[in-house]
């Protein structure tokens, strides 16, 4: 079904060692450098920019959730804004009504979104391809209405105001920087969990179901179980992102969770690379900054930019930024290998493994 969405082969399958270090070591080094940068960065930026970067990370978690479902499992969802809203409202209601501390609202938000995702995933087993897109589209459109209607819980049109949490005593940074680090920790955790799932048995089952459901079932993969699991995992990630957004923004209202939000996740996912993990971060940057920039031109510009970006990426770069970069990297590493066959010592291998 998804012929043109494939995962770029990881670099390590092509090159064993480069400049004395294994590909795995290079990856860890790169990741550590990025994390170090992320830790230092907030101290050189204004509070507002720190807030913006926090939102980038939150969107990245949400897009990562969508990538698991749509990119790796092939189930199209246009309704993840709805699950983002459920996460946000769970946190908001727990904090404002029951005085639960902010950090303690994340597990219940995750749990609720996981359970709802599994429940939604059960009927979704019967909806293939465009039908699932349709159902989730309807869900995204209906979300603000439902939120407004149950106003005893959700505060209706006015929404719910929250007090921004302070850092624990003894940590000498301001609220926004503290929340930045909270989001960073959650993002890193989310990436780690996603990578473990996707690179293991579960991930292989998801990809097999995406690429050929019938063959996957014939090989003994319990498609129903893995598809609902993908749905639950995906909505869990997105729900946690929603919960974080409620804490960081300190406010939830129905109009923040329109169809546009769901489409934002899809656009971010497509631009970053729908079947990648790193693409989620690119997607987060896109969602946070591009519509705002476009808004300066005209009210209509954000939607136009989204539309045009979706078309351009579908035609020119169907694997997204990260997917394309990965395959470029693999290709250039391979070329270096070809030029100096003794270094890698895998030239025989390479010929037989044209991926």
């Amino acid at each position, binding site marked *: 079904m998804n*012929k043109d969405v494939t995962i770029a082969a990881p670099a390590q399958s092509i090159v064993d060692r480069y400049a004395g270090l294994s590909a795995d070591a290079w990856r860890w080094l790169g990741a550590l450098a990025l994390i170090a940068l992320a830790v230092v960065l907030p101290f050189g930026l204004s509070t507002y920019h720190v807030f913006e970067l926090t939102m980038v990370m939150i969107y990245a978690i949400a897009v990562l959730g969508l990538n698991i479902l749509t990119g790796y499992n092939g189930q199209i969802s246009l309704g993840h804004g709805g699950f983002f809203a459920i996460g946000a409202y769970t946190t908001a209601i727990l904090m404002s009504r029951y005085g639960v501390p902010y950090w303690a609202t994340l597990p219940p938000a995750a749990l609720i979104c996981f359970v709802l995702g599994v429940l939604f995933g059960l*009927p979704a087993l019967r909806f293939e391809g465009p*039908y699932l*897109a349709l159902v989730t589209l309807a869900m995204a459109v209906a979300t603000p209405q439902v939120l407004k*209607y149950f106003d005893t819980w959700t505060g209706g049109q006015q929404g719910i105001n929250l007090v921004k949490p302070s850092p624990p005593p003894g940590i000498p940074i301001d609220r926004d920087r503290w929340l930045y680090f909270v989001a960073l920790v959650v993002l890193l955790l989310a990436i780690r969990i996603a990578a473990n799932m996707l690179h293991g048995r579960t991930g292989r089952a998801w990809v097999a179901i995406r690429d050929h459901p019938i063959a996957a079932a014939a090989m003994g993969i319990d498609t129903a179980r893995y598809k609902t699991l993908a749905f639950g995992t995906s909505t869990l990630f997105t729900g946690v992102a929603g919960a974080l957004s409620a804490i960081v923004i300190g406010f939830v209202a129905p109009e923040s969770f329109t169809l546009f939000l769901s489409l934002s996740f899809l656009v971010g996912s497509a631009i970053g690379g729908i079947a990648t993990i790193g693409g989620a971060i690119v997607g987060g940057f896109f969602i946070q900054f591009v519509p705002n920039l476009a808004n300066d031109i005209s009210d209509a510009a954000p939607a136009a930019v989204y*539309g045009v970006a979706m078309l351009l990426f*579908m035609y020119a770069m169907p694997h997204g930024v990260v997917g394309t970069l990965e395959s470029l990297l693999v290709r250039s590493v391979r070329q270096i290998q070809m030029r100096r066959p003794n270094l890698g010592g895998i030239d025989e291998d390479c010929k037989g493994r044209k991926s």
Partner: protein
Amino acid sequence: MHQFSQQIFSGIAAGAIYASLALALVMIYRATELVNFAQGEMAMFSTYIAWSLVNGGVPFWAAFVITLVVSFLGGMAIERVLVRPVESASVLAAVIVTLALGLIFNSLAGWFYTYTVQDFRSPFPDRPLLGALITSQDLGVIGVTLVMLLLLFTFFRFTKTGLAMRAAAQNPESARLCGIPVGRMLAIGWGLAATIGATAGIMVAPVLFLDPYMMSGVLLYAFAGALLGGITSPVGAVIGGLIVGVTENLVGTYLIPTQLKLTLALVLIILVLMFRPNGLFGTAIVRRV
């Protein structure tokens, strides 16, 4: 009882709109096997064209015809340029492209005509008929839809192009071997769908008022109608659209508050897909391995 019959009639009028849009969706689905998420926005944009023509002094029915022609050509152009490359690609690519198309039309409308809600004057005299059972607006909508359906039926049943289009939709390979230009037939399919959508948009605009988000709710109900009738069946789409229209009006009047109308569409879609995924008149899609 009087209110009940009134609701039935206005349900049929609303259903006629849903039926038209559902028919447009089914046409595109039969021809290219993709669900056109941009159908509503395309119809909305066509309606804006008609609105600006009428505002420019063109008589209503002339503006109506011009809009239909422009929509037809526009629909063909969209198929040729944007949809053709993803026709054989994945479902995801097709969904993304039609969504993108919808977003672009929405923003173009906002750009050219602003997001202010516009009044779209009804072409039908404002007069209640049959003892206030039905407004002339509703009767007009039903009439125009009937005429359109009749024309479409005649076209597909009695013309050579109609036959060729049915062949192209049913079996593209064999049709191509018979010398039918399948690509052109698909483009005509998109053109016709855009025309049908434009009719629906112009008919519904006096009731809903015109703004770039006018069709988003209508599209959901049209989806529900198309699925209920069976997304492969044109007759089913019309009947499904009518059933959805009447249901929406009755349930909206007697059972649930209007704020939850869109949720009703969601529930309808889910129920149909769960209990009758092929719809009332659709055929099961058989997949060969």
